[in-house]
């Protein structure tokens, strides 16, 4: 399922002193099976944009259109309309999703979505078990426990499973790793990447972490005060337009940021390296060019006693 956002604008509390223009004239595209990251400051409109894509709020102008795999088009949201049917094809995991858990048992909670879709008991449970397995939880172990007894990371997995159980084609995650420890953080993102491939989902990730974006995303949408200022591959956004990114107060991922410092310090490096491994390789290459030696080479050359 492909999603197109067309000329989307939204103002909150119009006519009130708290009037805020959250989005103005947004255009972007989320392709089928793509991993798209949306980055931007707090208050730049990221969350508002994804809520439109999920069909939860109605815009003042413009619309969000979904093109299904068979070519038919459906409007997800436009003025006066937020589509209920398409909503189910787009799953959204909010910030701190564990706060939406409410049932007595984990399994029942994950069943909530399928139940609302009108599936029978057996089908609900099957979906729920499958969703729990996808997020790396064993339904036989945690299924009957209360969601409030679990650890923070597990609660979050259950909440994500609750959304996956709706069987969406597009999964939106609004800062899914907020408040997790580094291990939990990596686990969740690896899990999302795996689910994307297994279930052939499109992923929309709202994030503040540039390293995650560089590592996982196929495409990056950069937002600033309610508008899309850049859209492109991570290489394009971080390497070609890194300085503009800094101007609006966003950081580069650790790799390019470090390489840039080295280059400014006089080392001849190419800053267009996004991942940790590529960055290391680039530094080694540059140091070798300068006549540096790896520890092994140094050991070889060392005078024998």
């Amino acid at each position: 399922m492909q999603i197109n956002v067309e000329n989307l604008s939204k103002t909150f509390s119009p006519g009130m002193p708290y009037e805020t223009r959250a989005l103005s004239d947004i255009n972007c595209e989320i392709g089928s099976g793509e991993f798209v990251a949306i980055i931007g400051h707090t208050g730049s409109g990221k969350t508002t944009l994804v809520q439109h894509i999920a069909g939860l709020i109605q815009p003042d102008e413009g619309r969000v259109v979904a093109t299904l795999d068979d070519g038919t088009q459906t409007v997800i949201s436009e003025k006066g309309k937020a589509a209920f049917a398409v909503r189910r094809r787009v799953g959204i995991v909010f910030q701190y999703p564990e706060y939406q858990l409410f049932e007595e048992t984990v399994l029942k909670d994950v069943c909530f979505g399928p139940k609302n879709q009108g599936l029978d008991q057996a089908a609900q449970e099957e979906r729920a078990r499958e969703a729990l397995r996808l997020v790396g939880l064993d339904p036989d172990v945690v299924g009957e426990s209360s969601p409030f007894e679990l650890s923070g990371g597990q609660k979050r997995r259950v909440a994500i499973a609750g959304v996956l159980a709706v069987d969406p084609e597009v999964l939106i995650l609004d800062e899914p790793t907020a408040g997790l420890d580094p291990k939990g953080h990596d686990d969740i993102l690896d899990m999302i990447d795996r689910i994307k491939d297994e279930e052939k989902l499109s992923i929309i990730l709202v994030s503040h972490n540039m390293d995650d974006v560089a590592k996982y995303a196929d495409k990056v949408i950069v937002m600033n005060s309610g508008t899309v200022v850049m859209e492109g591959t991570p290489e394009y956004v971080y390497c070609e337009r890194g300085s503009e990114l800094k101007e609006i107060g966003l950081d580069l991922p650790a790799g390019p940021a470090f390489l840039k410092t080295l280059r400014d310090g006089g080392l001849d490096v190419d800053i267009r390296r996004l991942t940790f491994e590529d960055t290391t390789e680039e530094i080694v290459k540059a140091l070798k060019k300068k006549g540096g030696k790896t520890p092994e080479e140094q050991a070889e050359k060392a005078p024998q006693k």
Partner: protein
Amino acid sequence: MAVRDITLGQYFPGESCIHRLDPRVKIVCALVYLVSLFVVQSFWAFGLCILLLAAVIILSGVPFKFISKGLKPVIFLIIITMLINVLFVRTGEPVLTIGKFFITNEGIYRALFMGLRLVLLIFGSSMLTLTTKPIELTDGMEKLLSPLAKIGLPAHELAMMMTIALRFIPTLLDETDKIMKAQTARGADFENGTLREKAKALIPLLVPLFVSAFRIAGDLAMAMEARCYHGGKGRTRLHQMKLGKGDAVAIIVMLVYLGCIIGSRYININIF
């Protein structure tokens, strides 16, 4: 979102002379005004109430659209009150008769009277909360109640409870909004269905909301204790309240108004 439309108890930022009045004066004036609405017995005296309210609204610079939004949640109540008056007042001359059923002119008169009184009550109290920051409001109340502390009334604690309650209205509204959206995304339906279904649909909203409320309350209690909060004894204030010239004017205006209203009970100008 419907949950955002609640004006009662919301502050409208501004710098007008009404905003700048001492909160104690504003609270007392508002109380006097509300009481005066029950003292009034004739329509022409209501004119006086409306005049004062209009003056306050104009001076405060709060747009009328914003104030009238406060009516929305209670409009139903007002309509019912008016209907009951129209339908059940049996005194006076019948003006409309349908079979055995009749409506009297006094019924209509009383319905209008009650309706107007309720609308003015809402507007009057809204003006207090719209022009006074919640913190000022509770500070003012604490100060006004402090003489009663001598007879054992926990004035500070009451004021603190009010402050906290007011402070968390927007937080809880945001939380409600968020949980509603999250459950809607999972296919929950809060709008359609029978009353029974609607009530049942609230469970996925209320359980997480209560959990959040308790969590927030726990966090707040801890944060307050960490900053050595231990009740009102010996606490000093950041903002000392002082009565100014404007406050004196407000008090005089209010006294004159009160005099007129009480006087209105003895002067009978019958327009009907």
